[in-house]
């Protein structure tokens, strides 16, 4: 009797030690703090990130993600390169340029597969394609991206730009609404909404449909990080994509989360923004986040054609390793 009793006691003791060990292990496992530098101010453009954080997807990967918004003084590429941020979100063209400059950065997933850069007109104007620009006032925002995309598109379309009155405009739709321009450039997720808000319908022209597309938002990090913390990178990619999938399926909730980061924004606008964003992220014929050599190649070709970069192995700029791992995970 005494023997069996002591055995039972020993078992109970072992079990309790084991359980205590388990619980302490869980509590001891602290979240790794990670800074992510966004490409822009807080808005639904990064809905997937907000969702991932707010729904606890990052925490599940043991990450405490700090989402740092863009500011003129701190650019994602710089911040990540110097190690101020662990991850960044930026345009594929920028990343290629940085890479060409010798910065050891690498894209680990694409968010915006289709560039939201668009040209929009009032529906009543009847302008629905670049061919219709002839003889019209086209307002272009003063960023190199927009100009580059516009010029390339016109070139691809064989349109004589001399017949078009190109004007530089501000970062809103006011000039189109004022009639100063017939067509304006802008992010499909932002500026055209002003027109809609003004009670008018818009025509959207995507340069992407005319052969000029650049991955707009890609997640990137340093080669160092990939090498030393591949599990952390995988966790971050996986959680971010999960966040986006969730946002796609639950747009309203995603907007709620977005507004937590930027309470001053209009819900209606953010709702519109997310709705417009989804087709650019989620093409349906590819996994979210997965990049193609063709797409990267196209961007590189564009940049090469403009003599912006020298020779570069495009496969060094990105890796699908983490996206693939995320989808290989058992769900």
């Amino acid at each position, binding site marked *: 009797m005494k023997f069996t009793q002591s055995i039972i006691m020993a078992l109970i003791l072992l079990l309790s030690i084991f359980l205590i060990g388990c619980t302490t292990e869980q509590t001891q496992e602290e979240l790794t703090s990670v800074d992510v530098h966004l490409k822009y101010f807080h808005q639904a453009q990064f809905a997937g990130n907000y969702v991932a954080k707010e729904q606890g997807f990052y925490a599940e990967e043991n990450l405490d993600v700090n989402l740092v918004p863009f500011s003129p003084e701190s650019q994602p590429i710089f911040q990540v390169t110097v190690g101020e941020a662990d991850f960044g979100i930026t345009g594929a063209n920028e990343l290629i340029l940085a890479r060409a400059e010798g910065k050891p950065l690498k894209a680990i997933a694409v968010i915006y597969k289709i560039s939201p850069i668009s040209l929009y007109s009032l529906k009543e104007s009847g302008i*629905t*394609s670049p061919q219709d620009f002839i003889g019209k006032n086209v307002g272009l925002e003063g960023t190199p991206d927009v100009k580059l995309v516009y010029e390339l598109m016109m070139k691809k*379309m064989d349109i004589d730009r001399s017949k078009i009155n190109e004007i530089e405009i501000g970062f809103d739709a006011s000039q189109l609404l004022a009639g100063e321009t017939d067509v304006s450039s802008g992010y499909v997720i932002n500026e055209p909404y002003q027109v809609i808000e003004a009670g008018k319908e818009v025509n959207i022209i995507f340069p992407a449909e005319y052969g000029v597309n650049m991955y707009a938002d890609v997640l990137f990090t340093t080669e160092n990080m990939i090498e030393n913390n591949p599990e952390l990178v995988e966790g971050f990619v996986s959680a971010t994509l999960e966040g986006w999938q969730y946002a796609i*399926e639950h747009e309203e909730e995603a907007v709620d989360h977005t507004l937590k980061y930027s309470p001053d924004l209009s819900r209606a606008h953010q709702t519109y923004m997310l709705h417009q964003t989804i087709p650019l992220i989620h*093409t349906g*014929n590819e*996994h979210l986040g997965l990049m193609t050599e*063709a797409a990267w190649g196209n961007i590189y070709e564009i940049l090469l054609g403009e003599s912006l970069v020298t020779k570069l192995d495009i496969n060094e700029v990105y890796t699908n390793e983490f996206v693939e791992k995320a989808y290989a995970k058992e769900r």
Partner: protein
Amino acid sequence: MKIKFKLAIYFMVVPLIIALVFGYTSFVYSSESIIERTSEHLESVAVLKENQFNSYLNERLEELLDLSEQELIVNYLNEFHYLNKNYDENEEEEQEAKVQKLLNERLLHHRSEEIFVILLNGKVDISTDNKQKGKIKLQEDYFNEGLKSIFVQSFYYSLSTQKPAITLSVPIKNENNVTIGVIAGNIITEDISTIMEEKSGLGETGETYLVNQYNLLVTKSRFIEELEFKRTIYTKAVKECLEGKRGIIENKNYLGEKVITFYDWIDDRDVCLIAEQGKSETFTSINNLAKILSIITGILFIISLLIGILFSNTISRPIIKLRDIAQKVGKGKHSIKIHVKSKDEIGDLAKTFNEMASDLKEARNELIKHAKSVEKEVGIRTKELNWSKKALTRKATEAENAKLATLNILEDVEEARTKLSHSYKKLKELDIMKSTFLTVTSHELKTPLTPAKIQTQMLLEGDLGKLNTKQKSSFNIILRNINRLNVLIEDILEISRLEAEGFKLQFSKVQLANLIKATTQNMTPVAEKKGITISYKKSTLPQIEADEKRIAGVITNLIENAIKFTDKGRISIEANKKGNKILVEVKDTGKGIAKEHIDQIFEAFFQIEKTFTREHNGTGLGLAISKSIVNAHKGKIWVRSVLGKGSTFYFTLPLTQRQRELKISKRKRLNIKKK
């Protein structure tokens, strides 16, 4: 528990168990067959949907194929774009308008979203949707693949149309079989959803839908709006399906509900077809069955309960009645009878009981009658007694008087007794005095005899001078008489000591047989002198406790007597164990003892002839002494004799002397133990 409840429970439980077993078996059996049937049903629905889906796409492809062979289109492309001859712009526009018109016309009859022609450079040249004109499709699969052969680009999100699309493409070839363009058509994807949604006989929870290779739900969900092209599905069925498999599985669907799912990978469309039905609904019929079964079981239960109660009532009622009446009878109500009509064992029991009760009643009545008569008798007797009592009282008075008389007499008696006691005391004193006197006189007598004897012996031996024959004979007579006197005085001394103080016996273990033998042998010479044979038949005897010397004396005395009183014949001695005693017999063939003397022979100084005869040497004290010795051993001595034929002397000796004491002490010990 009461018998009624017991019976009710038995009656209830048996059919219930049967119902449950039957119900369970049929439930299991039917659920198996239902799953099988559902699987078959799901598969047939899936096959039907797949056929519809394929034929829908094929119809659209047929339409595109027909268009791709239209001379108008082929010529237009060949002339104005492929060959790129110098051409009239107006003619081109004219031809283009014609093609456009054709496409528009076809679109009216065909079920398509858009039909468009793509040039080799990837540009959309003509489209039923003007806005699409000029768009570059170089990146699109339907363009690149469409250049080579018929192609179906399954489910993707079209930026152009801002919705999910399936695009079919067919190469356009000139007469030299050179591809000069691609004609493509966007399918109305809602139609596919409709095909999937259309009634399939899958009930309330069933649906069929398509999932593409990126786990994306591409057709409408029957249950949640706008889920298509948003929700990714990672159910077991989809997982299996995306591995290119076909099968049936029980799993949870994208809504987390338990379903039976049939899945099939449609290879050339790159989609997975799912047909499933909620398990709950699948089992509706079974659940109905279960309901019916439980209702039947319930009814059975109630019926059996009622029957049970009824039966238990009919069975238990007479028993309970029997018990109640038995109790009443027990309390003395004998006139009660049980009325049980049933002709079974209980009826018999009741009948027997009734008989028993009536018997009891009779017996009781008898008893009462008897008691009454006894009472009467007692009354009579009491009266008689009263009379007797009066008589007695009278008699008592008389008796009282008599008593007084008696008391007077008693006083006289007491007086006499005191006198007697005085006489007794005196007598006793006299007796002691006699004994003392005897002792003293014996002693005094003996003392002078010793020197007389010695002197006589000396004279006889011639120490004081030679004696002549006459003198010798005279001295011999003197010596013999001295000896006799000596023996006589010894015996008197013995007897007087005996009477004065009693014996002080010295007990030891005695082998009586050996003792008798030795004594007999000692006496043999004396007997032989007289010509008498003496025999002792020795037998084994137990050791006894006795005073060896004295017993030897007794035996010697008896043998001496035998020799003394026997002239001829023999003396036989025997000793045997009788119970816890030894019986010794000394038998002679002498002259015997007259009846009148038998009682006296053991008394002192008794001899039959009342004389110290010369013939019979003896003091007459031997038997008295022997009797005393035997008595002191707690034995008995007696004689049987036939005058002229012989006498037999008997005496007994107990085996142990302490027997009685031992017994007493044993009993004491037992008493102590008992306490």
